[in-house]
């Protein structure tokens, strides 16, 4: 508990409320912090606002036209809302539930898509280096180095998901957000992603939405438990799993609902 406060948190969420329609809050007055170089798992029954909270962290929730946001999120002490979304999303990358490589792009092009889609020009050798580094970091390099110029969609689901992680970290972000990244994958691909996240947290701060409790227990350092839009409990994963303070957390962890 004590060393949580020794370093400035990467993300600080302050009284965040989000409504898709006026008055109907999907996230209610959530305050929390995310420690640097840790994996934070957001858990809770489906529909409790996990995705909404996660997407707010790089303002992807703003894609919905009538969304209403109150409160604030600080990235390294600065509010993310006045920032340009390009700058913010370069610092806070995202991986989705279903692998979504760009189907018209090769594996190589997918990795550097963040640059090409934003018209950031790179020299060929810089690009090659970024591609190789990102693919090595997601342990995909050896599997795909022979077919860098084939379409990304020709890979297996687990490989595609790692390609999507590579695409997100090619920007060298500070934070990586993942929304149930393994729910569409088989157990072997899932464990590869989990191992990968354990490695990646050395460089990046990771926030992971999961409805798989054992996954949260296996790989996360900190956990948040949400219920009906509220953040019921947050803290070290070990503490939260062994001695939950709130009755609702305990009920969830023992499988009473969810």
């Amino acid at each position, binding site marked *: 508990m004590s060393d949580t406060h020794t370093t400035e948190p990467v993300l600080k969420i302050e009284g965040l409320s989000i409504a898709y329609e006026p008055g109907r809050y999907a996230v209610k007055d959530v305050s929390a912090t995310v420690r640097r170089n840790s994996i934070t798992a957001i858990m809770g029954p489906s529909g409790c606002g996990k995705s909404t909270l996660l997407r707010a962290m*790089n303002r*992807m929730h703003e*894609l919905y036209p009538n969304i209403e946001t109150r409160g604030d999120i600080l990235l390294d002490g600065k509010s993310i809302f006045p920032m340009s*979304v*390009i*700058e*913010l*999303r*370069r610092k806070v*990358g*995202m991986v*989705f539930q*279903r692998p*979504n*490589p*760009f*189907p*018209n792009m090769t594996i190589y092009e997918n990795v550097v*898509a*963040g640059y*090409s*889609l*934003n*018209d950031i020009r790179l020299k060929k050798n810089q690009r090659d280096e970024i591609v190789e580094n990102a693919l090595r970091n997601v342990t995909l390099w050896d599997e795909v180095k022979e077919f860098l110029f084939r*379409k990304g*969609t020709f890979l297996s689901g687990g490989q595609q998901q790692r390609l*999507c992680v590579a*695409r*997100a970290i090619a*920007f060298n972000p500070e934070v990586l957000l993942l929304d149930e990244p393994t729910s569409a994958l088989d157990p072997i691909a899932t464990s590869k992603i989990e191992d990968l996240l354990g490695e990646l947290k050395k460089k990046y701060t990771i926030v992971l939405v999961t409805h798989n409790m054992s996954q949260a227990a296996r790989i996360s350092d900190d956990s948040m438990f949400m219920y009906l839009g509220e953040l019921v409990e947050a803290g070290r994963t070990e503490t939260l799993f062994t001695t939950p303070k709130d009755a609702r957390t305990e009920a969830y962890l023992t499988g009473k609902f969810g």
Partner: protein
Amino acid sequence: MDNLLIDNIRRRNRTNTRLKYIIIAGAVITVVPIFLIVGNLALKGYRQINLAFFTEPAPDTFQAMMAASSGEVIPGGIANGLTGSLLMVIIASLVSIPLGLMTGVYLYENGTKRYASFIRSLTEILQGVPSIILGIIAYLWVVRNITRGYSALAGSTALTIMMLPLIIRSTEETMKMIPVTIREAAFALGTPYYKMIIKVLIPVSFSGLATGVLLALSRILGETAPLMLTALGSPSVSLDVTRPVSAVPLLIWDFYNDPNMVNLVWSASLFLMVFVLSMNLLSRSIASKHKYI
């Protein structure tokens, strides 16, 4: 019990075989006429197809009569129709392809808004309007008021109005097939909205968009009725958009009306048929090569 099961399987197999034959028969019924048409046209029209057919304008009645009476190949060709068709199709494409793509993307992006559904209904209505009526509209707008006479521009206008709804519909339908997750992937990388459209949506749906455009093109290439009221026809090669021009289907009609030129009907039709068929095949090959969704 066993016997019942075997009986059951036998019956299903019989139904299966019967259905297979029905499907094969259906396929033959659809394919045979196409071969018959092309074969027939080729047999009757091949003699006229030579270099002059593409480089010389249509002959006049007298030349055709002389050739016909001495049993020779009719001189001249369809150069005036080719250039006229090309001119009008290019102008119509320059307007309707960008406008149609933009409108289609707009409708897809703003699908539920009120003015979007208004435009969509308008497009659907326009698609159902008989082409001769579009010819009359182009006649009233362009022939009467702008070029003050029959003109290539008037013809292009009619063809543009025909192409637009086809392209708009196919664009919107194609865009609908792109999974939302692809858009989200682009946005999550900080891609601005318009770049997401240009660099992700359009390339991802390229095959569908190209197919829509090519089918619209092959559809208008054979249009005759609206051109009779607008481009009128011209005996010589002309690239002046304010003057009347010919077109391949207009020439076919002219040839048909001159008993001495019947042979040219077959060769011009053969050309048009083969051209439109190859456009269809081309769109198929593009569609399969760049199919991502």
